[in-house]
């Protein structure tokens, strides 16, 4: 019986680590998609320069900010629809 409880506790701990891992994976994936999309939308593709110019820099800032807003809007919609996400 003590053993069964140990197994139970062990599993709960695994679950906690697993969920924390999924949560971190989610953040990493969000960051990677954001980086990729804003590179596509803001950076001139012929790569004539090794520096980001002023236009590209402000485009990046706005792109990140708008992407963040979209994340929040969608998160709100999922939250109200499914009560949990």
């Amino acid at each position: 019986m003590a053993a069964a409880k140990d197994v139970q506790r062990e599993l709960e701990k695994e679950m906690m680590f697993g969920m924390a891992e999924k949560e971190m994976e989610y953040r990493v994936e969000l960051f990677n998609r954001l980086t990729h999309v804003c590179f596509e939308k803001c950076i001139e593709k012929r790569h004539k320069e090794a520096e980001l110019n002023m236009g590209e820099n402000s485009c990046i800032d706005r792109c990140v900010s708008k992407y963040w807003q979209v994340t929040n809007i969608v998160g709100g919609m999922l939250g109200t629809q499914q009560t949990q996400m």
Partner: protein
Amino acid sequence: MDKSMLGDIDNLPDEDKMRMSAMIEQLQMRDSLRMYNALVETCFKDCVDTFRRKTLDKQEESCVRRCAEKFLKHSMRVGMRFAELNQGVATPD
């Protein structure tokens, strides 16, 4: 690719059943988070193309909302059709 792999799940000892359902729960959580990420990326790409300001304008925001609703309905419909095919249900042309 056969589906039998998980067929004998009922014969597993209780401890393994618990582990299995913990694993499924985690994969489902990962799956919803990925779907969330994919939805955001898709609707951002479809709706946002100008970067003169750092906040969405009205038009972009309503595009995003409609896109997200459609994406969710789309993905529910795909899920239904997919489940039917997985169960071998025939549907009219």
